[in-house]
């Protein structure tokens, strides 16, 4: 029995502890935010927060989440920080096909929590584990920069 917090709620799961967290989130909890893009921790489409830090759920075993707080885009989207990022992404054009977007939002939150006023280079490093094929990244970097400036006090 693995107990953890998911998007603010206490949950209990009786599944194989070696299960990929991604599969638990998508199949057991029916969440659609985290996605499978590569299955090997490379593309970041599966990214979620564990104790506020970005991890790749496709190579993260369920057991490792015991007593931790997991936040997916579904949980994050209820926050003011999400709104600041979402608005900035809209204004800067940071989302095209959208498949990488939840992961990028998670990466941005993880970065800004640690570093509320990052440089462009730090933002690029912060999202270096999230691959995007549509945008060429620059509008996403601009969006995160904008959110960090406008969202004063949020992070």
């Amino acid at each position, binding site marked *: 029995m693995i107990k953890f917090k998911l998007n603010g709620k206490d949950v209990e799961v009786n599944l*194989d*502890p*070696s*299960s*990929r967290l991604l*599969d638990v989130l998508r*199949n057991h909890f029916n969440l659609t935010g985290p996605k*499978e893009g590569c*299955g*090997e*921790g*490379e593309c*970041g489409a599966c*990214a979620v927060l*564990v104790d506020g*830090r*970005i*991890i*790749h759920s*496709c*190579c*993260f*075993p369920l*057991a*490792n989440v*015991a*007593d*931790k707080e997991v936040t997916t885009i579904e949980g994050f989207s209820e926050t003011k920080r999400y709104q600041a990022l979402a608005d900035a992404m809209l204004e800067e054009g940071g989302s095209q096909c959208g498949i990488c977007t939840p992961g990028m939002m998670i*990466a941005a939150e*993880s*970065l800004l929590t*640690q570093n509320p006023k990052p440089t462009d280079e730090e933002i*690029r*490093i*912060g999202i*270096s*584990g*999230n*691959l995007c094929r549509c945008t060429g990244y620059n509008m996403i970097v601009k969006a995160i920069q904008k959110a960090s400036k406008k969202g004063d006090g949020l992070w």
Partner: protein
Amino acid sequence: MVKHVIPKNLQDALNHLYQGDYHVIAGGTDLMIQKRNSADLPPLFHSNMLYLINLEELKYVMKDEAQIKIGSMTSLETLLHHKDVPELLKEVIKEMASPGIRNMATLAGNIANASPAGDSLVPLYLLDAIVVLASTNQTRYLPIEKVIIGPRKTVIQANELIKEIIIPIPHFTQTSWVKVGGRFADAISKVSFAGAVTVSEGIITDFRIALGAVYMTVIRNRAFEKSYKDLSVEELKNQLPQILTRYQELIKPIDDQRSNKNYRNQVASNLITDFIQKI
């Protein structure tokens, strides 16, 4: 029936290892992918699993006058931002994988995985890291080059786990790290190079080179290094052709999906040359 155990503390973990046949897993970034099954199915871990990553007592960085002690379950990302971690090691970690992977990965995992291209291993070899292997009946302190004996082969016994990594505090005057991957983030190294030197009044008192991804394990040759001790910087630079020839004989790069022998060979030499010329 495969058993999965999340130990309550270190002693609990050691007891399980003593009693049964467990495969130890830390962050999982290597094992979860190496043993992966189809999507929606758990990995093919055909053995009992012992999950160590959340043993809080193994998450620490302690510095005294001589050494830095790193708890084996400290994440790479934590090390990257910790004031007591040597700069050289931080330089390496900064270019490894990505933030998400660094939040999950550990030096212990890198050591146990013993990949020939493992970046963190290179500075650990260069800095004379000691790996602390704990079991219920003993604690072994082994230099890292005695722990890793081949590609994905270590001397870690079935009842042991990596408890700590000890790094003597480095006092170099100059260090260098160059990672050569397919791109500038999130890449497996084609070649990697770490160099360190201590120069005192124009004389070399310490000279070290370590190369990664060009042999079955990290290359470091103390005999070579010793022979350059007490030379002047000028004399060392004059020795460059011989130095290159010596390291060329140790390097055994391969052709693979990432690069080819010639490139790895030549770049390794270029990296050594560049380091020495810049002393």
